[in-house]
């Protein structure tokens, strides 16, 4: 489709002007050129009017805190939050004890990849089911959204109650079914607790993925599916050749978003395990909190937060480029 057909009039005019100039190597007459410039200027002004306030708001609410925090990681913040430049002191202090970082870093990777992979798998599965002919489809769609609309802390408290070693619902059920003889300390066992927090995160996160993928699935033309069926393609073949190419960009997008959410997740982990037992669920986000609010090592905390930001940024740029390349292909 020609971009100028769908774009706003101002943008279309600007685009037309650019096309026009590109298509005619010889200089246009001065009158035409000034008219084009005039249109371009008007278009820019219009954009500034519409986007200006938003840009100012974003610069204030996002840009400034990010830049301030990044600067803070190079400042003497340990000295009652002095903003005097201190070079790499905070980073040197943070990295001088790598043993305190390696565990949380590996735990973060496990938590992020574990929850993203499971959320994507369950979200995709649920979206495929709800996209088909299913009785009570609308009811299921609403019901599946429930975990996502409940506040994170409430979700975490709910899971803590379910997993409580003494009065927890899970232990109660398993005891009544005689599957276990005595209550299990789910959140007190370093081999189990990391997986509990992943399950809680997946439970909360998959509805968002499901909704996004469901929307993407509904854009895949039914005619293509029917044509593939007529050509003898089975369900798997239809999914791989027709459905998947249609939803892949959204799949990458929601995977990236879910990864970012998991990477910086704090509330679920803090409420459920507080980073324990034996540091098994200590992730970078809880480590930042601990360094800042419990140990008052502000410099180390800000340096770690800055490193987390850079890591998340690199991962996001990489995945977004992947999605864009995919779309272009």
């Amino acid at each position, binding site marked *: 489709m020609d971009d100028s057909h769908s774009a706003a009039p101002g943008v279309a005019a600007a685009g037309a002007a650019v096309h026009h100039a590109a298509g005619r190597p010889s200089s246009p007459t001065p009158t035409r050129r000034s008219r084009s410039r005039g249109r371009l200027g008007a278009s820019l002004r219009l954009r500034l009017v519409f986007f200006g306030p938003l840009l100012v708001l974003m610069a204030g609410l996002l840009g400034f805190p990010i830049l301030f925090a990044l600067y803070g990681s190079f400042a003497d913040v340990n000295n*009652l*939050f002095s903003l005097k430049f201190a070079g790499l002191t905070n980073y040197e202090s943070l990295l001088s*004890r790598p*043993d305190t970082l390696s565990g949380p870093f590996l735990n973060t990777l496990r938590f992020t990849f574990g929850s993203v992979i499971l959320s994507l798998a369950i979200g995709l599965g649920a979206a495929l089911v709800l996209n088909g002919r299913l009785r009570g489809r609308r009811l299921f769609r609403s019901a599946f959204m429930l975990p996502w609309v409940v506040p994170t802390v409430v979700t975490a408290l709910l899971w803590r109650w379910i997993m*409580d*070693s*003494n*009065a927890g619902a899970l232990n109660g059920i398993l005891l009544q079914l005689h599957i276990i003889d005595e*209550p299990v*300390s*789910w*959140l*007190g*066992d*370093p*081999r189990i607790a990391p997986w509990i927090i992943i399950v809680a995160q997946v439970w909360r996160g998959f509805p968002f993925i499901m909704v996004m993928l469901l929307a993407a699935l509904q854009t895949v033309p039914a005619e293509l599916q029917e044509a593939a069926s007529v050509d003898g393609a089975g369900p798997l073949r239809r999914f791989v050749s027709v459905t998947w190419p249609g939803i892949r960009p959204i799949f990458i997008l929601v995977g990236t978003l879910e990864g970012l959410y998991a990477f910086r997740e704090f509330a679920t982990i803090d409420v459920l395990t*507080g980073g*324990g*037992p*034996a*540091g*098994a669920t200590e992730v970078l986000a809880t480590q930042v909190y*601990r360094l800042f*609010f*419990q*140990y*008052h090592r502000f410099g180390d905390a800000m340096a770690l937060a800055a490193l987390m930001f850079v890591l998340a940024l690199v991962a996001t740029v990489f995945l977004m480029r992947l999605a864009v390349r995919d779309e272009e292909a």
Partner: protein
Amino acid sequence: MPPKSRHAIASMATLALVLSGCSSGGSGGDASGPPSGDVRILSWRLADPGALGKLHQSWIDSFNQSQSAIKVTGEPVPFADKGTKLVNTALSGSAPDIVAITTSEVANYANYLQPVDEYWQAEGADFASAFTDSAKELATWDGHLWGIPIEDGTSDALYYNKKVLAKAGVDIETAVASWDNFRSALQAVKASGNTPMVFQGKDAASFERHWAWYVAGGVDLNDPDQYVKQMCTPAAEQTFAWLTGLYTDGELVPNPSGIGYNELNRQFATGNVGFVTDGPWGLGIFEGNNAAIGADLGVTRMPPKEAGGRTGANEDALIFVIPKNAKNPRAAWEFIKYMSTDQAQEASAEAGGFVPTRKAVFQSPAVADNDLLATYSKLIEESGFVRPRGPKMAEMMQILITAYQAAVTGQKPVGTAFRDACGELERL
């Protein structure tokens, strides 16, 4: 001057006047005259829906009614958030005039507080001598006094369930005679089909319940400069192993790594647990979970390592402190004094079972006729030690509890977990 500039200057002047009029919320009083102005107090006690919360609010109300020069406004804050709130407000220049913290936290927050030695001195010798020596020790850090402590207490007394012990045939006096006896009692309770004991080990704060065992095990925790050295002695390693063994050797306690304070209370309140350690406030919490349990409970000292040996009771109190950039410290001091009078402390003892910090209050009926309070007063008198504290205490407790959890859950052998922790402590 152009009209636009005049207009701009006039607007700025007006704005400055308006802002100065509503910025501080009070003058803070003349430095030489009697204290006056607004005082804002941040207190977790005010967030307590029970009797203590009401009592602390009544102090604010009665103080405001008793005079007109100082107006106190209370701001409730959850116990767990008080430190964060103190640091945030101090760093952002909006600190309140008074903050309620615990005496063991003074060292953590000393950077944000102002010492109050001159206020104590100004009150004269009689004022200082009215307080117990241990109270003054609790309020002192780094050679300075930081506030006035009230509501002294210890969490290191042993609650026991009489019915559970009777079913197991356990005599309480024999059980608390030594660690070996205590272990035998736990085994007897286990054999009778009940849970022997609940023991906290879920988070760094849980380690506060471990200190007393280390003191009983022979570790000297009186000098903050020696904490690391003392916690790496053979006596400390033996205590670490003994406490770990409570779970690993036959599960005499449920996995402590999953037990925080709330879980501890809930489990003990079910009525099928033999022992738990807690402060005088514990009774009310157990009864809150199970109204019928109070009649079954008794409270006594914790067992010494060897028969006739020493026990420990870590002592901690509530202290009202004044942040460094408080707007009205002199008026704040006046209200702090008001909350620490004999009458106020009698009311605290009655409402929460706390040990007073003023000597005269020990003779009052509120204390003398209260059996629970008498038990705790005796414990503090005989076995009290200042709860370990220091600017790196949060990290220290995190290291120790992580090592404990690693050993309890089999992530590391006991000896390795202990030695690793010592290595980390020495690098602090």
